[in-house]
């Protein structure tokens, strides 16, 4: 029998996985102003690391932990040369970096099956449980991870540290003059963002249970960018809603096409709408559908004073 509920749960899982990516990109772009166009690379590192370990028989917690650190490490290493570059160069370099990494996973069969992809054994197998229950377990794991990432992101951006990275975003030179080691802050945010992408990748591989290089094309990065731009950069809740919106639009188009007769292919239409929407939002409401969240800390007063003075 059909179970629309499962489909909704499935969507919720994907929203969760993408929301983590969106939050991580938000840390990099929204708060620190880094144009990472290679987000998918770190997602991919997380997914592959986790899958390889799972195939070697490691428990899931170990997989996701190592995946997180692996993606964070790759992010850190990549950030060392990349972050010295200006925004447009950084974008192109990260995009090319993601593609090179994908080529390696694609062509080196010994790593993880090359073009054949790699299946991922399920970490949690409970026999005799209905699929709905399994879905709920998956959902719980994903949303627990999202909650942790969200919590970390909120803590980071609402701390004095977060104030500094926003200052870097606003005016790198001024921050530098104030004695902040801009590069160090950027590298830390990039590493943190990459590690979160690794978490997301690990969850993804465990949920889909099969990954191959074709999953990690640059389009995935741009999907996450759309979530951030639509949701409102520098607003963690906003970008999560952005993730909901983009996923809902994608699945909505799939279902709508069975009921509507359009002269246009709904898939084309969906992407065209997103394209136009991005341009319109950047033109008329560049703060996104949701504004930048205000700093919320005990040091709020100090911060707002500082803001006013600057």
């Amino acid at each position: 029998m059909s179970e629309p509920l499962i489909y909704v749960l499935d969507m919720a899982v994907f929203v969760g996985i993408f929301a983590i990516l969106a939050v991580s990109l938000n840390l990099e772009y929204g708060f620190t102003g880094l144009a990472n166009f290679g987000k998918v690379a770190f997602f991919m590192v997380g997914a592959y690391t986790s899958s390889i370990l799972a195939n070697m028989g490691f428990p899931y917690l170990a997989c996701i932990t190592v995946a997180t650190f692996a993606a964070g490490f790759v992010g850190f290493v990549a950030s060392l040369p990349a972050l010295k570059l200006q925004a447009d160069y950084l974008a192109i370099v990260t995009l090319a970096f993601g593609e090179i990494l994908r080529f390696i996973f694609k062509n080196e069969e010994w790593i993880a099956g090359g073009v054949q992809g790699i299946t991922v054994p399920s970490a949690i197998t409970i026999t005799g449980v209905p699929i709905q229950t399994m879905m709920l377990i998956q959902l719980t794991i994903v949303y627990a991870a999202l909650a942790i990432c969200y919590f970390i992101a909120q803590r980071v951006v609402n701390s004095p540290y977060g104030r500094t990275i926003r200052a870097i975003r606003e005016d790198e030179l001024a921050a530098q003059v104030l004695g902040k080691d801009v590069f160090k802050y950027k590298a830390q945010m990039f590493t943190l963002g990459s590690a979160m992408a690794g978490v997301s990748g690990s969850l993804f591989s465990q949920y889909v249970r099969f990954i191959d290089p074709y999953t990690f094309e640059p389009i995935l990065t741009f999907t996450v960018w759309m979530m951030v731009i639509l949701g409102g950069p520098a607003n963690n809740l906003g970008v999560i809603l952005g993730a909901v919106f983009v996923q809902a639009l994608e699945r909505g188009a799939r279902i709508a096409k069975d009921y509507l007769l359009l002269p246009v292919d709904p898939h084309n239409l969906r992407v065209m709408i997103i394209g136009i929407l991005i341009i319109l939002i950047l033109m008329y409401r560049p703060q996104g559908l949701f504004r930048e969240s205000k700093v919320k800390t005990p040091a709020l007063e100090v911060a707002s004073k500082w803001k006013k003075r600057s």
Partner: protein
Amino acid sequence: MNSSATTKTTAVLVALIIVVAVVAGVGGYFAGQSAGYDAGYKAGYDKGVMAGGAKAYEKGKSEGYKAGYETGYKEGLKAGKPKGPTLPDKIKIGSLMCLSGFLGPMGQKIKLGVELAVKEINRKGGIAGRPVELIVEDTATDPKTALEAFKKLVEVDGCKVVIGPMASPEVMAIGKYANERKVVVISPTATSPKITTEFPDDYIFRTVGSDALQGKALADTALKKGFTKIATLVLNNPYGIGIEEKAKEVLGDKIVLSIRYDPTKMDFRTELSQIKDAGVEAVIYVGWYEDGQVMFRQALEMGLDNIQWIAAEGVYGEPMFKVADAAEFMKRAVIGTRPIAPTGLITYKLFAESFKKEYGKAPTMYQDTAYDATMLAALAIAYAGQYDGAKIKDALQYVSQYYIGATGHKMFDKNGDQLTQFYEIWKVEKVDGKYKFVGIGRWP
């Protein structure tokens, strides 16, 4: 007696015999088909040979066969007797196709094969009187999207049978979920041997042979021709690599140069120069129309038509002739293999006619396997008598033993793979200014 009279008599005879012979379910289909064949044969033989016209005999045979085939389907589909819970009023069949992304161009074509089958089924009155509704979803040539689309078909639309997905990685991605949710998946194109090892004995079927077989067919063809210095030139994807690995296994150190290429790169000049300079006698080539057209044209331009090319089925089909240079190159230098039915191809001819009538053009690669997959699904539903994944799966195993489709016998082994797969060895000829494919042998 003239031949048209013979034909008429035959048809009447066939119809009579079928009405008598039809039993329920697939029995009806099978009986109808064989009865038609017998009737045609008999009538043709009796009347035609007696009248001394071998032509009339041939015609009678084919007419009779056609009539039997038609009626067999009709009866087979109609006779699905509801057992236990009845079939729903509308039977939904899902289909996952790569309508966009890398395989998008191919998916757009293959979809037509599925749609043709559904149209025919509905024209014949649907499955046990119930119309079939086809729901096609785009997978964007991406495993993640395929899984998402598959879930939509299963959970929102409630499909228990899904035709597709096309690419092997997509099948790999949805396999586990299909088994969990007991949904029958019949892929018309996924050829990776990994599917067999990953999903044995379950809900994953395919109407196309595994690459392992064709790799062997290609390698044997090269051996038979006595080549000792061979290059492989394959798509860098599961299809190309699956065949390449098998061919390497068979040919060993006779392979002196191996090139895997990215089909989106499309600038193959230097790869081809390499092959030219390596001085090989033959090239084992695995590609699709999309890159094959370009590859063959550039190969002709580079003057590689003086060595033997042995190609897999990916480049078998009329679209290859759209590019004049590619067609000319194929005529000069290419032979190849492709999966065929072991007993001749009148069913294919019938399929091709129907296809041409519907779309105004000749069918191309995998549209036939897609058609067969859909027909098999419909017959299995009819035979199962209820819309239930597990029942349909068992029914599918059973009906496949009797089904002769556009691509011949489609018997599944216990893994859901083709039990027997024969390959035709083809070449290209130019007749009256038109290129066409000609069979020159068979494997095994």
